[in-house]
């Protein structure tokens, strides 16, 4: 039993080391990636709602990403969408009927 525990601890230790190495070697990419989910979601939603003028229900379906956002809000007066995910917040804002939405 002790031997099995020892092996399991070793395996766990190796996994943690591997995750650590992968994280350190890809730290820049991981850090740069963090605003990806909130950025993409807010931009998708903004264009879907205010450019394509689809329903919020349809836009939510269309904008859904593999990683979920922790929160989002639509400001219909300002015509903007704000979303948060992975500790980052992004906002996309509708300009006019020629230039649509821009991720700020």
């Amino acid at each position: 039993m002790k031997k099995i525990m020892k092996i399991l601890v070793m395996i766990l230790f190796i996994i943690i080391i591997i995750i650590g190495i992968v994280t350190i070697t890809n730290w820049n990419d991981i850090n740069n990636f963090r605003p990806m989910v909130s950025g993409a979601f807010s931009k998708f939603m903004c264009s879907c709602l205010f450019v394509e003028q689809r329903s919020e229900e349809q836009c939510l379906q269309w904008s859904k990403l593999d990683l979920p956002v922790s929160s989002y809000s639509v400001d219909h007066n300002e015509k903007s969408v704000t979303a948060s995910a992975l500790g980052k917040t992004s906002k996309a804002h509708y300009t006019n009927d020629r230039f649509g939405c821009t991720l700020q």
Partner: protein
Amino acid sequence: MSNLNRHSIKGILVVCLIVLFTCITEADEQQGNVTGTSNFKKPATQRDYWPTKEWKVKKPEDVGMNSQDLKKMELYAFSRLQPESERKGIRTDSVIIVKNGYIVYEKYAGEFTRNKVHITWSVSKSFTNALFGIAIKEGKLSLSDPAWKFYPSLNRGQHKNITVDHLMRMSSGLYSNETYEASPLKSTVNAMLFTIGHTDMAAYAASQDLEANPGEKWEYASPTPNLLMAMLKNTMSAREYEQYPWEKLFNVIGMKKVVWERDVAGTFVGSSYIFTTSQDMARFGYLFLNDGIWEGKRLLPQGWVAYSTTIAPAYYTTKLSKSDMADPAYGALWWLNRDIPEKNMKRAFPDAPDDMFIAMGHWGQYIFIIPSLDMVIVYTGDNRDDTFNINTFLKLIIDSISKR
């Protein structure tokens, strides 16, 4: 001695001539490889109207197509079998078929209608192509111009050898990792659109290191058209730039509803962010079908469509990835359904003619232009997986044309 000299001189002359001839032949051969050829041939039909105000409609039978056969395409494209929430299977939003200058088929699905705009994603790149054609015709720049002339930060090292032509043909050598959902951490297109590059996409594109000498490697790179659109911005005033796409292109060909989103720096996102209606996409395709002529006037330079539909020289010499091999060949911001015997490659869509060229966008946005059939086909959708088969879709349409 004098005879010997004469013989020597003759000999030297012959050797020189042989060397000269060999050099010229090699240069020609290289030029042949470099320039390639286009399969584009403008349809011979004399147009009896232009769809600037509105498209005219005919029955499929009036242009030699069979309505019953077209139903098979409709059944294939418009049968959503999976629940909406799963986003699986074929999810068509619209199809338009223009034959001999007339709409013979038009259908919309879901929330999309004739007057609603749809994201076109990378179809936008072909619009960037058209704007460059117009700007070149106006003398604002030329294909052989160095890119740094219009984007000074490129005036460094080997980057200064990048030309407008290299950028148009995805051969700049700038580093690119064109993955979307497959490798989100490393994707340069995701970084450009949503993270470190989104405020100034051209600056992000220009900041990339070279992974090959300019002109030597073909690699599909979404940042490239945004660099082009920033270069175009630098040839005119801010006000002129804001109006340029509408005044020079969209309004001229009667595109009624176009939204072209910009980044924070005010550059039109030439890679991805044109939204327009399917009828307007058909108008744009019709401009290229007609060799860049609209209402009898030349809008794009003479030979521009041929240039756009000539395989990029670097495409021949680049070792393509498996996925690149499965895609159509590449011209200048247009995809080409071409056989490439030099690379032992068959065309991507074997049941469509080899003069077909295509504007293709993410999740299933297409403008197919088939000059030999005098056809433009527009498809929009939301295809998140590989269920939709482009060849099958095109075959069903082409099979509906009566025996030619």
